[in-house]
C-alpha cells in the first residue's frame, strides 16, 4: 500500500509521462485519494521523493517499480540471457501491462510464456493464479516459439479444471534444467 505522499508522487510521474486522457484521469484519482487521506488524518499534503513498489516474479525475482515504471529487476532477463536461451532451443516471453488504465498495476508482469523450438509454447505463468500451466501447441507457432499460434492446456480433454504447478520444476523438469544453466 502506498502512503498519501507516495500516491501524490505516483500521480506526478504518471501525469508527466503519459498525456493520455486515461493517465491524466488516473493521476487525478490518485491525488484525490491522497488529499482525502491527508484531510482525514489532519495533516498537510506532502509529496514523497519516490513511490517504490516491490513485486516478486518467477525468473525475474524481485522487481522494483517507481511511479508505475520498472526500474530494477533482481535477475535481468535481457539480451545475453535471451540469446543464450535461444541457442539452447528455448524462448521466454514476458507479457507486461502497458495500458495506463491498469492504474497502480501499470507495467506489471501479466504472463510468462516459455516454449521450445521443436514443440512451441510449453509453459505459461499467470499473474492471477501465480502458478504454471502446461501447454500443448497445435504446431502453428512459426518463429514465435514462446507464445505463437494456437495452443491448449495439456490435460485430459474431459477434465474441466486446470492443472496448476507451483514451480517450473514441477511443471516441466527438462525446461527447468535448461533454465538453470542460464540463470
Amino acid at each position: 500500500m502506498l502512503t498519501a505522499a507516495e500516491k501524490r508522487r505516483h500521480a506526478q510521474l504518471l501525469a508527466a509521462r503519459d498525456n493520455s486522457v486515461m493517465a491524466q484521469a488516473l493521476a487525478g484519482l490518485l491525488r484525490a485519494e491522497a488529499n482525502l487521506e491527508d484531510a482525514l488524518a489532519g495533516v498537510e499534503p506532502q509529496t514523497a521523493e519516490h513511490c517504490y513498489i516491490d513485486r516478486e516474479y518467477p525468473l525475474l525475482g524481485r522487481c522494483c517499480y517507481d511511479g508505475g515504471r520498472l526500474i530494477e529487476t533482481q535477475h535481468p532477463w535481457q539480451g545475453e540471457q535471451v540469446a543464450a536461451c535461444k541457442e539452447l532451443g528455448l524462448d521466454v516471453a514476458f507479457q507486461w501491462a502497458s495500458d495506463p488504465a491498469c492504474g497502480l498495476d501499470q507495467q506489471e508482469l501479466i504472463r510468462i510464456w516459455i516454449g521450445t523450438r521443436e514443440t512451441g509454447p510449453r509453459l505459461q505463468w499467470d499473474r492471477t493464479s501465480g502458478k504454471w500451466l502446461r501447454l500443448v501447441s497445435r504446431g502453428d507457432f512459426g518463429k514465435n516459439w514462446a507464445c505463437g499460434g494456437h495452443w491448449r492446456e495439456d490435460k485430459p480433454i474431459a477434465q474441466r479444471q486446470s492443472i496448476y504447478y507451483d514451480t517450473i520444476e514441477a511443471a516441466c523438469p527438462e525446461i527447468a534444467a535448461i533454465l538453470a544453466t542460464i540463470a
Partner: protein
Amino acid sequence: MSNEQVNPNESPKVTLMRARLRAAQLRVEAAHHDSGGYHRQANHPIYPGQEDICLHKAGIVDSLRAETMAKADLIEAEAEEAYKAATGEEAPKC
C-alpha cells in the same frame, strides 16, 4: 443536485475531499468511454454504410463521456459551494 451523502459531523474539508474523490472516480469512468476506435473504423469502412454506423456509435460514446464528466464537474462545484458556505473561504485547490 448530486446524490452525495454528507455526514454532519464531518469537517467541511473532508466533505470537500470526499466529493473531489467521487468526481475523480467519475472522470476515470469517463476516460473509459473512448470513441477513438469508432472514429478510426469510420475512416476505413470495410462495407458500405459502416462509416455511418461507426459515427453513430462514436456519438453515443461521446455523449456518455460528456454526461459523466458533467456529473463530476457538478459534484465538485456543489462541494466547493458547500465548503464556501460553511467556512466563508474559497475551497483549497487540489
